[in-house]
C-alpha cells in the first residue's frame, strides 16, 4: 500500500550511521519510489507503526518523501518478532535447554565472530563442548552456570550470550535425599554453594539441603 509518511511513526530510533542514511536519501530522491517496502502494523485507524525495515523509513524521512510503499502486517507479537528477524534488525535465538551441539557451535561462532564482540577470545570448540555436555543443562534457569564451566566465558560476557540464546528450563526432579550417600550429599551442598557442610553428619546434611 502507498501510505503517507505522516501516518507512520517509528517507535525505536535506528542505529545506522548518518552517512548511510543521508547518502541513501540522495539515491531515493532521484527515484522517489522505495522498491524495498517498509513493514508496518496498524495501531489506530489510519495510524501506523514501523515493525520492520526501519532503515528504509529513516532514509525516506531524510529524503523528505511524502508517500512510501508499505506492507501492512498484523498486530501480533509473533509477527513483530518475525519481521524484525527477517529484516535483520533482531538476532534469532535458539533454545539452549534443548539445542544440539551443532546448533550451539553455530550460534557461538556467530557471536564470537561479530565485530567488537565481547566473546572474542573464547575457544569455540571447548565452550560448545562443555556447554553441550553439562549434565544439568536442561534445568538451567539462567545462563549463570556457564561461568562455572571454565570455558573462558565470565559473568561479564553472559549478556553477549543472551543475544542468541534463550532458555525453557524443565522443572527440577525432586530429590530423595535419604537415598543418597554422605559423599553425594556433600557434593550437592558444594554445588549449591552452602557453607559449613564438611563436618556434618548425614541427618544434618539432609536438613541443610531441604
Amino acid at each position, binding site marked *: 500500500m502507498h501510505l503517507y509518511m505522516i501516518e507512520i511513526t517509528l517507535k525505536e530510533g535506528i542505529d545506522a550511521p548518518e552517512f548511510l542514511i543521508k547518502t541513501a536519501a540522495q539515491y531515493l530522491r532521484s527515484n522517489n519510489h522505495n522498491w524495498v517496502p517498509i513493514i508496518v502494523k496498524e495501531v489506530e485507524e489510519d495510524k501506523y507503526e514501523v515493525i520492520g525495515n526501519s532503515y528504509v523509513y529513516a532514509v525516506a524521512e531524510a529524503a523528505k518523501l511524502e508517500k512510501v510503499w508499505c506492507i501492512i502486517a498484523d498486530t501480533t507479537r509473533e509477527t513483530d518478532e518475525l519481521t524484525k528477524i527477517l529484516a535483520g534488525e533482531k538476532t534469532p535465538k535458539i533454545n539452549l535447554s534443548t539445542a*544440539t*551441539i551443532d546448533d550451539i557451535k553455530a550460534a557461538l561462532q556467530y557471536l564470537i565472530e561479530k565485530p567488537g564482540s565481547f566473546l572474542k577470545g573464547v*575457544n569455540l*570448540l*571447548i565452550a*560448545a*563442548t*562443555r556447554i*553441550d*555436555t553439562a549434565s544439568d543443562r536442561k534445568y538451567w534457569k539462567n545462563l549463570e552456570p556457564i561461568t562455572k564451566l571454565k570455558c573462558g566465558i565470565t559473568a561479564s560476557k553472559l549478556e553477549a550470550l543472551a543475544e542468541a540464546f534463550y532458555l525453557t528450563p524443565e522443572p527440577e526432579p525432586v530429590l530423595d535425599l535419604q537415598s543418597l550417600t554422605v559423599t553425594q550429599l556433600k557434593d550437592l551442598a558444594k554445588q549449591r554453594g552452602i557453607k559449613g557442610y564438611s563436618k556434618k553428619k548425614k541427618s544434618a546434611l539432609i536438613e541443610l539441603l531441604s
Partner: protein
Amino acid sequence: MIEIEAVLANLPSNAQKSIVSTIFMPTLFKTLGFNETTIFPNYNTECGYVDFALRPHQDNEIFLQTGTNPSVLVEISGRNINLREGTAQYKTVVSQLKTYLLSPKCKSATWGIITNSCHLQLFRKHGKVIHPATQCLEISNNNINDIVNIIRQKIHSPSTALTVAIYNNKGGVGKTTTTVNLAAVLTAWGKRVLVVDFDPNQKDLTSCLGVSLGQNTFYELLEDKKNLIPLEKVIKPYTIRFKRKKTLTFDVIPCDEKLETQKEHEYLQIFKINRLKQILDKLKPNYDYILIDSPPNWRFFSISATTAADVVLIPTKHNDIFSLKNAANTIKQYIPEVQEFKKDGTPIALPIFWNGEKATAAAKEQARKAIDIIIEQAKKDNPPFDLLPYFYSRYTRDSQNRYIFELPSYANIANATFSQIPAVYRDKIACDYYLALVKEYFLQ
C-alpha cells in the same frame, strides 16, 4: 511363483510413486516381516514426512497408535525417478532419507530403505554415521526374493559395532593419535570399544598404550583358518584407574613382531585380503566401535583394514598438500576398489578433518583453494568423481559452506604419548577436543 515376485512382475513399467506405494510396498513389507500395525505411512519425522516408518512388533505397544521410536524409515519413488547410483535423483533421495534418519525424533531408527521397484538399497545408521548396507541393487523377479531375505535378516538382527579404519596414505597425519584418543573418549562416554593395531612396521598403538603382546599373537590368529584359537587370548584389556576407584577399560588387539617378518607379496599368498574382516566380524556383536589403526601405503595391511571397515576416517593436515591429495586419492581410487571387492556398498569414506596444526585464517584459505582445485580435477577424471561431499560436508548449492572440522593444535596431545596414557585421560582440554570430534562424526 512367490508372492513378491508376482507382485513385482505385475507392476506397469512406468509405475508412478502411488502405484509402487500401494501395490508393491505392502508385499515387500510383509516379506520383510512387518504387518499392518507395525507400518506407519507418511510418518512425521519433524524434519519432513517420510513415506513409511516401520518398527518390529512389541507386545506392550502398537506402533501405528503411538508412532514413537521407529526402527526403519522407507522412502519411495516412482519408476520415473532413476535411482541408479550416482544419478542426481539418486543423490536427492538419499540425502532426503539421511535428513529424516538424523532427525531427533528418529534417533531410534537404525535402518533406511530407498526403492522405486526397479532399484532397492538398504542403509544402516549407527549413531550419526549412515552407510550403505547393500549396494544400490537392480531388482527383478529373479533376485527380489533373495535380496529381501538378506535385508530381512539384517534388519531383525541386533545392532553391532561400527568398524572404523583410520587411514591416510600419507604418513604422519596423526592416525595412531586419533585412534587412541577416539577409543579413550568413546569409552569414557560409555561405549564398548575394541582397538586393533594393524601397523606392524611401527606398532605405535601397542607401544603407546604400553600393552604387552597376547599369548597367541595376532599372526597366529590370522593364520588360524580352523578357528581353534579363542579370540579372548589375543585381546588384551587396557585399563585406566582414576581417583575414587573409578576405572575405564577398552580392549586392544596388539600388534606383534612376527607380522613384520614376512615380505609383502608373501602375505597375499598366506592370508586372504578379507581375513581380518572375518575375524573382526565375529567380534562385532561384542562392541559398539571397532577402530583399526592402519599404516600409510596402500598394501596388505591397509587394504585388509579398509576391507574390514564399514567406514574410513581420514585425518589430514591443512598445511600439508600431500595429505590432502592422498586423501583425495584414497577416496576416489582405493576405497572404490575395496567397494568393488566387497559388493555390499561399504566401506565409505567419512568427510576429512584437519588434525592438530596451528592454523591461521590465511593458511586455511590456502588449503581450501588447493582443495577446490583437487575437486575440480576429479570432475575431469575418467569417469568423473565428485569429491566435494568428502571435503566440504556441509556444502549445499545455496549455502556454499566450505566448513571442515578442525581438531585444534594442542601440545598435551602429543606429549601424552610419553606417559602411555591417552591425552584424553590426562587433560580436560584434550578431552573436550576429541569429544567434539566424536560428536561431529559419531554420536548424535
